[in-house]
């Protein structure tokens, strides 16, 4: 009885937060999903469009290209902003005076993506950009980078990795520092080589941190907007557009709110799927 009463009190305390979540998250989700089935230009009343907006997301060449670019961002982030920091963290973990390295790698993480994008846009500019001026000193001339659709997405992924790398490195280092040494030492005594110890002992013990880093990386890369928008507005044309930029462009530039909402739903589903395992892990942790 006492326990049930406590549960009721706990629930009462939860109500304000639940109302807030309901209003700020659930209502927009439902409304956006509803708009995904409509044609609406903001000015005139919405009209029913069925699933045509969802069909367009997967059949319009510009949106397919945006989907492809988003996949590049996800893969680039997983490889260079998750796997690579893990590798560097494993190496740094053996270095005694590693604070300076932590600091150097962490500094870009203190910038907002917009500031990082402006900084790199200026650095890479063909007119008085720092990189071009530097290369000029050595007699090397390069073509404009950001307006080159063959490379600009990869360059911008590089900017993102530059910014995101440090925080992941720190997280992995924290994880590695908290791993108990006994199981590792026991494995080595039993004849495991360093590679085996890393993959079979250290990596499984790092799982909670790894899940956090991976989920964070996936979510941020799937909804990537700031860097490609600030650096080249998803251009030239629509060449470097990500799904998040398509969402913005279709909704607020072309005023196709229905199509924009359908893209938003697709991005949300992708994000949910990407973070599903992480959410499950959190649940398991709590039950344990």
């Amino acid at each position, binding site marked *: 009885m006492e326990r049930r009463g406590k549960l009721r009190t706990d629930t009462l305390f939860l109500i304000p937060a639940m109302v807030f979540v309901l209003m700020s998250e659930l209502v927009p989700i439902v409304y956006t999903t509803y708009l995904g089935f409509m044609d609406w230009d*903001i000015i005139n009343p919405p009209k029913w469009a069925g699933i045509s907006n969802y069909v367009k997301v997967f059949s319009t060449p510009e949106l397919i290209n945006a989907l492809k670019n988003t996949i590049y961002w996800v893969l680039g982030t997983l490889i260079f902003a998750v796997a690579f920091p893990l590798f560097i963290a494993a190496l740094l973990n053996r270095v005694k005076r590693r604070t300076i390295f932590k600091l150097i790698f962490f500094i870009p993480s203190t910038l907002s993506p917009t500031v990082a994008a402006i900084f790199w846009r200026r650095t890479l*500019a063909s*007119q008085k950009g720092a990189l071009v001026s530097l290369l000029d000193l050595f007699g090397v001339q390069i073509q404009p980078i950001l*307006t080159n659709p063959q490379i600009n997405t990869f360059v911008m992924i590089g900017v993102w990795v530059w910014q995101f790398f440090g925080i992941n490195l720190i997280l992995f280092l924290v994880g590695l520092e908290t791993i108990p040494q006994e199981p590792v030492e026991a494995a080595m005594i039993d004849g495991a080589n360093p590679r085996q110890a890393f993959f079979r002992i250290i990596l499984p013990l790092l799982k909670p941190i790894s899940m956090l880093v991976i989920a964070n990386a996936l979510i941020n890369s799937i909804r990537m907007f700031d860097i490609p928008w600030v650096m*080249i507005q998803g251009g*030239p044309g629509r060449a470097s557009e990500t799904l998040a930029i398509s969402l913005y462009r279709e909704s*607020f530039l072309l*005023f196709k709110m229905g199509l924009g909402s359908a893209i938003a739903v697709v991005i949300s589903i992708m994000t949910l799927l990407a973070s599903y395992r992480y959410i499950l892990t959190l649940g398991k942790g709590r039950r344990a």
Partner: protein
Amino acid sequence: MKKTILLVMVITLAIMMVFGLAYAGGEKKGAEKEAAEKAPEKAPTEIREIKLYHDNPEWQSFWEEMGEASAQDIGVRAVPTAFETQVYKSRIKVDLPTSRAPSVFKWWFGYRAFELMKAGLLADLSDVWAKVEKNYPPGIKEALTIDGVPYALPFNVGYWVWFYSKAVYKKYNLSLPKTWDEFMKQLEFLKSKGVYGIGNTIGKSRWTSFIVPMELIYRVDADFYVRLMNGKAHYTDPEAVKAMEIWKEMLEKGYFAPMDATYVEDLPRMLKEGTLAYAPFGDWYGGILQQQGLFPEQDYGVFIPPPITPRGKDSIILEISPLCAGKNSPDLEAAKEWYVWYAGKHSAQILWEKLRFVNTVHITADEIKKGDPTLAHEMDLIKNYPNKMIRFWEATPVEIVEYAVDAFNTMLVHPNQYMVLLKGIEEKAKEVWPKYGVNY
């Protein structure tokens, strides 16, 4: 609907041609003597604030100065907020149906204003015009009128010309090309000297990609341009294809400045330094050049390139930037007082001194000649171009413009895709025109 739009455009153009709209330019009119423009002797004690939205961050300080001046003169301060153009378009559309609607906002006329008018989001400014019409040259009010209702006051009425670098002309002892072939030969020569020919770039500005293709299309055939804008011609017609082929050749020959250069910061510097020869823009660009430290006739001049075919002669592009008022703005009455002030002499003087804009009769031809000899020269030049056509951005439906702008952006980096891109625009036009009652 189609008829309304066509009618508005035809009337506008006809009136402009008849009255030679342009700038007040000429003699001072009696209206000038009238008191509307006089600042009150006593500064008002109570200051009311109204919202003013615009999409030119480079002009924010100008608008702040205007706000202070109106606060001093009539007790209404227009508080400016600058937005990036893409953000701006959506912000205006989102705010206009609500009580957050700005009292004053810069917009574009033609199709872009028509959709707002049709949705009942623009305030009727007839009562303002009744007080200030005498301050404007003939034809201006009509140019800003839809279905008999004036919805705006002019912010800028300008023409599209090509700014050229005096440094480049002086260094290579050049003279202005008289034929299209001469122009192309000159660009080839400049390239051989390491000078960029044309500054038409997309660094920080997506919209600028339409400038050169439209400059080419109407120089191939001005009548075709008008028909294209009105859904009477096709983007895959030989005239459009020819213009795109010329553009492709120019791009492939490397006549353009690096595409990531910005038109506010980089191009002015390049014109001044003599690393860039030409920059095609509306004459408002002169104000930007001067803000960036360039002097008219000393650092830059203007010229109008020759036609490509005889069917492209005597033609020039006209741009009208209006200031509109949100019908749902809670400060509409104060905004109307501000508009009356805006049409007065004090405001005209600030517009002239800061941006080199001349919309009213308050600025005389002598002042223009003294303050901006390049603009005065342009005023003389355009007298030879009686066929004034509305700019692409306003002249054709928004959906086609936005799609085409992206296609032209792609063209800048993939010139050989011109036919695919034209077909894409044509498909979009086929989809859009019927919505406007045009059998495309």
